[in-house]
C-alpha cells in the first residue's frame, strides 16, 4: 500500500482493499488497487466512466471474485465470501439504480431488508412464535424511524414499484440502513435525483456519518463529493491514480488528465 493511501485513513482501517485485480476476458478492469477506509469517515471514490468503481464495489461486497488481491473488513479477510454473508456482517451496499422489491409495500421492503441481520433461526422464520413477533415489531419500529428520517413516512403501505424514482432511491437507502450497518458503500446516491432532494440527501448522509456509520461514496457529481468527503480516491482505467483530500486531488495533474484528456 502506498503511503498516500494509508495516510488519513485514521488509526484503524475498517475496510482495506489490497492489490485488487480483476480481468474480464483478459481485459483488466482493476489493476492492483489498494485503498483503506478508516472507521467513521466519509470517503469518496471517483473516476471517469469505465474506470472500475462499480467493479471495485462488486469485489468488496462479494458479487465478484477478484483474480488477485484481498478485501479485509474489520481486519478480517472476507475475499470471495458470498454477498449475503458479507451483508450480514454489517457491510452494506446501495446500488446505482433505485432498486426495490416492486410488488411489496415499502414497509415489507424494509422488513425484508432488516430481518436477516437479526440472526433468527429457520424455525423462527417459518413458525410464528412470540420471538418472531417480537423481532417483527423491532423491524417495524426501525422501518418507521427510517421512513420518518427520509421524509417518506406516508409511503409505508404503498407498493414500492409505484413510488416515484426519488422515493424509490430513498427507500433503497433506508433498506440498506435497516440493520444499522457499520459501513455503507453508496453507488451514485444522487444520480437522477432533483436538486432539492440532493440537499436533503447530503444532510441525511452527514447525520448518518455523525451517528457513527462509515461511508464510501461513488459519485459523478463532484460538487457533492468535494462537499461531503474528507478523502477521495481516484480511479482511472482500473488503476488508483490519486488519493487524498479533495482540494489536492482536484489539483493533481494525473486526475486532470484522466478527466479532461492529456
Amino acid at each position, binding site marked *: 500500500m502506498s503511503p498516500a493511501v494509508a495516510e488519513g485513513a485514521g488509526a484503524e482501517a475498517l475496510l482495506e482493499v489490497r492489490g485488487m485485480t480483476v480481468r474480464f476476458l483478459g481485459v483488466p478492469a482493476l489493476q492492483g488497487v489498494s485503498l483503506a477506509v478508516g472507521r467513521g469517515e466519509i470517503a469518496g471514490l471517483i473516476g471517469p466512466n469505465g474506470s472500475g468503481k462499480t467493479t471495485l464495489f462488486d469485489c468488496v461486497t462479494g458479487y465478484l471474485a477478484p483474480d488477485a488481491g484481498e478485501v479485509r473488513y474489520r481486519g478480517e479477510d472476507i475475499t470471495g465470501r458470498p454477498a*449475503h454473508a458479507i*451483508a450480514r456482517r454489517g457491510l452494506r451496499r446501495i446500488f446505482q439504480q433505485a432498486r426495490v422489491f416492486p410488488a*411489496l409495500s415499502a414497509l415489507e421492503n424494509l422488513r*425484508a431488508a432488516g430481518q436477516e441481520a437479526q440472526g433468527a433461526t429457520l424455525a423462527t422464520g417459518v413458525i410464528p412464535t412470540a420471538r418472531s413477533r417480537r423481532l417483527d415489531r423491532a423491524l417495524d419500529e426501525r422501518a418507521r424511524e427510517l421512513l420518518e428520517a427520509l421524509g417518506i413516512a406516508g*409511503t409505508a403501505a404503498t407498493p414500492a414499484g409505484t413510488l416515484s424514482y426519488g422515493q424509490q432511491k430513498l427507500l433503497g437507502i433506508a433498506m440498506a440502513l435497516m440493520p444499522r450497518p457499520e459501513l455503507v458503500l453508496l453507488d451514485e446516491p444522487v444520480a437522477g435525483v432533483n436538486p432539492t432532494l440532493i440537499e436533503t440527501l447530503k444532510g441525511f448522509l452527514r447525520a448518518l456519518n455523525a451517528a457513527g456509520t462509515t461511508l464510501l461514496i461513488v459519485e459523478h457529481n463532484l460538487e457533492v463529493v468535494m462537499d461531503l468527503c474528507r478523502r477521495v480516491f481516484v480511479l482511472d482505467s482500473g488503476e488508483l491514480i490519486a488519493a487524498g483530500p479533495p482540494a489536492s486531488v482536484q489539483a493533481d495533474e494525473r486526475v486532470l488528465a484522466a478527466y479532461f484528456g492529456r
Partner: protein
Amino acid sequence: MIGPARRALLPAAAAAAAALLPLVARSNYLLHILVMTQIYVVLALSLNLILGYAGLLSLAPPAFFGIGAYTSALLALRLGWPFWPALAAAAAAGLLFAAAVGVPSLRLSRHSFVIVTLSFTLLAQLAATNWTDLTRGPMGLPGIPPPALRVPAIGPVRIAGKAGWYELMLAVVVAALLAFAALVRSRLGRAILAVREDEVLARALGIATDRVKLLAFALSGLLGGVAGSCYAHYISFIDPSLFDFYYMENLLIMVVLGGAGTLWGVVAGAAIFNVVPELLRIHPELRAFLYGIALLAAVSVAPGGLAGWVRARRAARAPRPEPA
C-alpha cells in the same frame, strides 16, 4: 381495514359451507369432480409456491406428484402401510427428491432450471415405465387400498364412497391452505418474495437466496407428494401416465389464470378449470375448441389471472392516494 378476526371468518365460513356440500351434491359424478378439484388444489399450491411466490418456473410438479403416488401406493400394497404413514412418506419423498434436484439445478440460471425440472419429470416417467420389478411398468399398480381411518368418537371408518373422500380431502386441503398461508406470511415467505422480486438486491440485504430457493422448491415437492398420495388412494390405480405433460398444462392454466402468487386465486383457478371442461361436454366435438377459445379470452382479458383482475378492479374503484 378488516380486523384479523373478521378476516379469518370468511375462510372459516367457506370451509364450513364446503363441508356441508355433499348434503346437496348427491351425484357421484359431481362429487368426483369436486374430489379431483381438491387434489388439484394441493398440486396447484405446489406450483404456486415455486412459480407464483419464488418466481421460478418448475416443470417438475407432475414428477413429485407421481413420486408421491408411487411411494404411497407401493408402501400400501407391498408393506401394508396405513394411509397416514404412507401419505407422510409420500410427502417426505417429494421433499427429498425436490431437494436433490434443487441443490445442483438452482445454482444454474432460471432458464436452465426450467430445463432441468422438465428433464427430471421425463426421467421419472422413464423410471416408472422401465423399472418393472418395482412399478410393474405400463401395467400400473391396481388395487391401492382406500384409507381406513380411526375417527375419534366414531371408531374405524373406511373411506370408500365419494362423499367420504370429499370430506377427507376437504380436511387435507384446509390443512394445506392453512400451512401455505402461514408460510407465505412468515419471515421465510418474505424472503421467498424478495428472491422473486430482485435476487441481486436480496443478496445485498443478507438474504441467502440459494437456500431460500431450495427451501421453496423442497416444500413445493412436499405438496406435490401429498397430492400424489391422495390421488393414488382415491383412484386406486396408477400407471406411468401420471407423469404426462398434460397435467403440467392443466396446472399452469390453473395457477397462471387463477393468479400466480395469490392464495385464493389459485384455489379458484383449480376449481374453475376442473369444472369448465366438464361444462363444455355439452358439445363433444367443439369441446376442445371452446376450451381453447375460453383460455385465450381469459389470458387477454386478465393477464394477471383472476386475482390480478379483481385487484385491478378494486384499485380502480379505490380513491387514488396523492403522490408525495
